[in-house]
């Protein structure tokens, strides 16, 4: 019995090792884990400044993956729900970072000037827009869709990752009556409670990734 168990463990170990090698890119992609320190990053913002996660220590940070041409993103901006959310969060003292990971030549790629123009024309209110054209930040967090939301609490721990709300559809009508996972998580964090739905399935367009260089 014992020998049998040992052999099983050994085989399982081998399988695990083999799997880790085979799935290394996939694993690296989903390194962001609820309850673990949020992956550190460094990126240039729309104004050309280098921003790091560490500079926001002690504050709650929200990451929003975005692509202004994606129908799902447009749904949230055209209805002004995204801008309202950004302003409400700013009022709470929360840092909102919009992340654009589309590489040059792909839909959604913008330079700093265009990013700022979009913010102005849409009356959006992010604290900063991070430009991630080689998709490094996206890989670190395993972002799959636009929008894809992450909330990092004051201790630098990842508290929420997933969808913006519970209506995974592109139609404008789906906004009505949607439950905002982001608002829910922020309210629970503020009340000192654990986040009840810390991880949901994000929905939207695929994040346009740059090829691994």
């Amino acid at each position, binding site marked *: 019995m014992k020998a049998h168990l040992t052999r099983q463990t050994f085989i399982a170990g081998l399988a695990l090792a083999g799997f880790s090698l*085979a799935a290394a890119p996939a694993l690296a992609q989903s390194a962001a884990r609820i309850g673990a320190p949020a992956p550190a990053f460094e990126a240039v913002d729309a104004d050309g400044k280098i921003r790091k996660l560490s500079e926001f220590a002690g504050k709650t940070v929200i990451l929003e993956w975005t692509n202004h041409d994606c129908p799902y993103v447009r749904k949230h901006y055209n209805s002004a729900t995204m801008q309202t959310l950004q302003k409400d969060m700013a009022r709470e003292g929360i840092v909102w970072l919009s992340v654009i990971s589309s590489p040059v030549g792909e839909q959604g790629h913008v330079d700093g000037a265009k990013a700022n123009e979009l913010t102005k024309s849409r009356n959006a209110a992010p604290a900063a827009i991070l430009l991630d054209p080689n998709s490094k930040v996206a890989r670190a967090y395993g972002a799959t*869709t636009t929008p894809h939301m992450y909330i990092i609490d004051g201790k630098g721990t990842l508290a929420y*990752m997933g969808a913006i709300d519970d209506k995974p*559809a592109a139609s404008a009508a789906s906004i009505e009556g949607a439950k905002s996972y982001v608002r829910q998580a922020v309210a629970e964090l503020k009340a000192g409670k654990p986040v009840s739905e810390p991880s949901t399935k994000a929905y939207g367009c695929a994040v346009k*990734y740059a090829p691994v260089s």
Partner: protein
Amino acid sequence: MAYPLTRQLWRQALLVLALLAPGLAQAAESAAVTSPRVTATLLSSRDAVAPGERFQVALVQKIAPGWHTYWANPGDSGEPTRIAWTLSQGATAGEIQWPAPKAIPVEPLVNFGFEGTVLLPVEIAVPPEAKIGERLTLQAAATWLVCEKICIPEEGTLTLDLPVAPAAIVAEAAQSRIEAARAALPAPAGFRGRLAAEGEALALTLPGLPAAATELRVFPLSDTLIDHAAAQEVRTSDGATVVRLARSSAFKIAGGEIAGVLTYREGGLSRALTFAADVEPALAGAASAPAAPPATVRIPLPAEGADLTLWAALLFAFAGGLILNLMPCVLPVLFIKALGFAQLAQASRAQVREQGLLFLAGVLVTFMALAAMVIALGALGTSVGWGFQLQSPPLVIALAVVMTLIGLNLLGAFEIGTSAAGVGHGLASRGGRLGAFMTGVLAVVVATPCTAPFMGAAIGYAVTQPPLLGLSVFLSLALGFALPVVALSFAPGLLRLLPKPGRWMLILKQAFAFPMFATAIWLIWVASVQAGPGGVLAALVAVLAAGFVVWLVGVTRGSGRGRLASSLVAVLVACGAGWFVVQSAVPEVAQARAGDTQAWSPERVVALQAEGRPVFVNFTAAWCITCLANERVALSRQEVKDAFAELKVVYLKADWTNRDSRIAFALAEQGRAGVPLYLFYPGGKGGQPEILPQLLTPDMVVSAARRAAGKEVRTAGR
């Protein structure tokens, strides 16, 4: 022979009519909704529909190269195609029957969807009340997301306008396109998988997958189960295929099972199966968040039980319980109860009520115990179904003995309880309290083989639900079952309708002995099927021993020392007989009986379908009265045999008299927990079976055979 001829004439007349009447036979495909990426139409397998029929339509998406639309679970991003139906004439539409998806990499992500041209079939049910001469309008408001690297949400309303005629007119070209698409749909896997934790990952065990399968890929229906882009590592263990799957970052499991589609290649051919897998309880409990929202998409099962809501299941269960009272296995037991009431008609109302409530208690306790066992065994991964207790030959024999003893008692061969005073005094007074309770117990135990109509779906639902929901369905069943007796005991008016005790009662009581003996004979026959000649010998020895024991106890009653000795002998004889029964009543391996039927296996169905033969599968058991009745009144009739021969139907029998986990899986796949179940598979690879009702008529079987054989035209008002 004259009858089919008139039918033929009718059909031809209709055809002529169809050609003459402008606009009657032109509507097999709707106008297209077109974008540079997708051309969508609605395709109908009918030029005209008949009232009461079910037929197939399909949403056709012709997708430009490089673009794709999405499956029920779109994978890492995207959105499945959805259809909102508006149908005239009270018609209803089923769910989309999803083809097997492709994994479409969008580095480093993976989507599940379709490229090229895809047909999404949907079944439309025309109600029998549909008005002939008017039109059936099908309006499909469809939305889909089409992506290359960028995504465009598209939508369109597709309309078909079909005449309602006395007989359906098949649109041959459209029909064959849709049937080809349906033949390529994932076929139900002949097995049930298991999903367990394996460290951080998941291990999906798939027993019964061919060893030669390569390029295996698992597509779960839930989008919160696996990391869609991660590699799926396949290994074999104990003859089963095990797939290691990385967990989704939003890992969540709703309920005790998961479902999805498997694709693989075997001998150069692509194959696809729908599968369900039981989730290891620890894993289901470990799902990250509480109160998962119910999955909005699932593979449409063509089963009665699959889409039941809780309320419908409760209602079906209640109705099923009521009807169960009329089944041949229960009737004798209810005779006894009715007899008891007849005798109690003179007694106080309170006493009668007490009797009714005790009967109710007996029924409830037994039902709950059996249900708890079924659910607990199910949770442990043992596949049992309703009526499983009758799969044990010693139990069947014990029941036969009980039936015989009740019969002997009714005939007055011996009395249970006190010194025999008045007629049936024992049953009514001292036997009273315990007797009433035990009658309830006995009624349930003998009732279980009769899975009455309505109950199949309800029980199928119950065993697939969380335990508490499952138990509540069984509770509803028990309440329905006990209702007539309880109502009788609570309604003095009803009781007064029963005639006064007298000599007639003695005669009636004796007459009731014979249904009991009949039941005993039937049970011994069941034992003979289960355990062969050894089973019959064991059963008869048990009956003999039981008779001897009650006689011995009766004779020596009242004499002090003799009584001790005789009790000792009685115990010895009973134990000896019991031992003999357990020893000799060993189940035999089930084998096909009757010359023109063959034994069922999922592989056999697939192979026969591939040969283009329609296949009829009869899931039955010797202890299932409904099954035997159907075989007698429908399946063994000459007209059915003729039709089967003419249409080259292969008749397969899945005999569940003894335990057989493959049959239990197959039943579960159709949302059932017990027999009977009748499936008619069309000829042609992968065709989905039609489920026939639980009570058959020869006509019903013949027309199902015609449908399965592709002889489509179905006359109305049959």
